[in-house]
């Protein structure tokens, strides 16, 4: 297999992920005069936060479901205009399935030559995937995060989604997944999911596992960010307007149905997250959303050998310096992979990442010295806010008691909690050992859905960030087809989206 190389296609910056962080990094790098390739597995710019139907589609764009679309339009406009000029290559429908960092000559020193990214092009549809190689002098990882689900009896019934899944159907497809919806878990993300569905006519109940009094400790951080308070007040008003009850210290502890969800059990939680005896009640539901915060998408960062650190929410995240540079020369990271903190933080980190690249190349700053000081101030405030948020919305300790032995934990390999518990009783410690004994985490999703649950049932263990050298399944046929296709130049005029 010899993958295709873009002829003259070594770009100054490859940005992986076109969400808030990636869009900002790409836009600032372009404004600074660099050539950019912007890669995203999705069909459209915006990532999960600004998920939109594809351009020109007949789906309701759902502008009322979004926040700060002005920033999206400005960043996307910069990127699209540069794509028309041939300075930016937009690669939607492309997934970076692996990358190999060239060896540095000395520790901390820049390696010789560009960093090759291996892409899988899915833009032509099933059965027509191709592989190609993209060489970049700098890479900005902005791969975002996905929902952290926790299992409960019945969570594998159709009609139970992650909270983000409900939101993706609504924002990307204009589809309301149910008319009686229960959204449960913890964290502020449950609120836009609930209000969005309610705005489209669903009857919605929110179960928030934590107690907002925890917020008292984080109020100082919130006060530093008046925008966040306004956003929160906006959700509160929308919840009242749409008559969405928010049940505090409650959780969805079971889903019921045969071929699809028909009802859920909602339970009151005690201070440690245990079910208050006698508090269970059954509520009819045709759709359920579950979300317990987010897990950063670290596959490429780990594959490339970037150092990780513990984040405010207990996740491992990429360690970056004041210019968002990772421990790997030529590799920067921005957004949720550096700590889950929301879109506004991600945009600013993306901006700093691009500024760092410009600086390393001896180019003038786009943002300017005073602008950069403001960005850094905002980054510090948003990180404090994110830490306060994580403190207020932990996964309740007692959640494992809701999970009986018959509950599926690994959805792909159909491993139940009893098997995991038996493995632990037999001496297995941590996700890796449980995986070896039970196959939990060995299936299609490679543990992305079950690892948080297995960690909860089996204890932390060693080196718990999974190494996934292949970040997405690659058809063997696509590898074989990789060398037969004509190369493309970066300066080729539109439509350059088609590689």
């Amino acid at each position: 297999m010899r993958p295709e190389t873009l002829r003259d296609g070594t770009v100054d910056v490859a940005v992986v992920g076109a969400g808030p962080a990636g869009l900002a990094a790409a836009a600032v790098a372009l404004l600074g005069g660099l050539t950019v390739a912007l890669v995203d597995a999705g069909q459209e710019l915006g990532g999960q936060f600004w998920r939109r139907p594809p351009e020109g589609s007949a789906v309701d764009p759902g502008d009322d479901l979004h926040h700060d679309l002005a920033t999206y339009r400005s960043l996307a406009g910069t990127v699209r205009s540069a794509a028309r000029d041939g300075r930016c290559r937009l690669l939607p429908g492309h997934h970076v399935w692996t990358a190999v960092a060239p060896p540095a000559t000395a520790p901390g020193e820049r390696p010789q030559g560009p960093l090759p990214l291996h892409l899988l092009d899915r833009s032509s549809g099933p059965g027509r995937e191709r592989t190609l190689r993209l060489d970049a002098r700098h890479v900005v990882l902005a791969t975002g995060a996905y929902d952290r689900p926790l299992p409960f009896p019945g969570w594998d019934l159709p009609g139970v989604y992650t909270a983000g899944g409900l939101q993706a159907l609504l924002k990307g497809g204009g589809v309301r997944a149910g008319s009686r919806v229960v959204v449960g878990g913890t964290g502020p993300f449950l609120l836009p999911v609930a209000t969005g569905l309610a705005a489209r006519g669903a009857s919605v109940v929110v179960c928030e596992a934590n107690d907002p009094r925890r917020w008292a400790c984080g109020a100082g951080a919130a006060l530093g960010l008046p925008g966040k308070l306004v956003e929160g007040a906006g959700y509160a008003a929308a919840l009242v307007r749409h008559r969405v009850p928010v049940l505090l210290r409650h959780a969805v502890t079971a889903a019921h149905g045969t071929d699809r969800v028909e009802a859920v059990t909602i339970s009151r939680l005690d201070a440690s997250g245990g079910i208050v005896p006698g508090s269970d009640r059954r509520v009819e539901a045709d759709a359920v959303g579950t979300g317990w915060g987010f897990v950063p998408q670290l596959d490429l960062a780990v594959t490339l050998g970037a150092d990780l650190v513990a984040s405010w929410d207990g996740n491992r995240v990429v360690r970056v310096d004041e210019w968002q540079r990772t421990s790997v020369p030529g590799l920067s990271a921005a957004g949720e992979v550096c700590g889950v903190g929301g879109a506004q933080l991600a945009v600013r980190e993306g901006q700093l990442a691009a500024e760092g690249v410009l600086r390393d190349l001896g180019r003038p700053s786009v943002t300017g010295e005073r602008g950069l000081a403001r960005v850094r101030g905002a980054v510090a405030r948003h990180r404090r806010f994110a830490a306060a948020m994580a403190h207020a919305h932990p996964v309740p300790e007692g959640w494992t008691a809701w999970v009986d032995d018959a509950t599926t934990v690994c959805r792909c390999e159909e491993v139940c909690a009893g098997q995991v518990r038996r493995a632990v009783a037999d001496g297995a410690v941590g996700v890796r050992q449980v995986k070896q004994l039970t196959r939990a985490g060995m299936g299609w999703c490679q543990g992305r859905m079950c690892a948080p649950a297995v960690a909860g049932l089996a204890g932390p263990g060693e080196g718990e960030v999974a190494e996934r050298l292949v970040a997405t399944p690659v058809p063997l046929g696509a590898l074989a087809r990789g060398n037969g296709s004509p190369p493309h130049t970066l300066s080729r005029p539109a439509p350059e989206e088609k590689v």
Partner: protein
Amino acid sequence: MTSFRLDGRPVPFVPGQTLGAALVAAGRTSWRTTRNEGRPRGIFCGIGVCFDCLLTVDGVPDQRACQVLATEDLEVGTQEGERRAP
């Protein structure tokens, strides 16, 4: 109304929707059964991470319904288990 076919029967869609979004909009919540226990599955994560929503597209198995855009001429099929190892 534009439509694709699922096991030969038309499913309407709005251009720009994924197969999964169109199926959910049509009231369909599952289109795959699991390999071991034969349990029904449809969309779970909705963003391409969980691989629960697999189906067959123009004869190619194991495609994620939440990632493939619906088009008029697609022949989509329900799936039993997984046709191919990851």
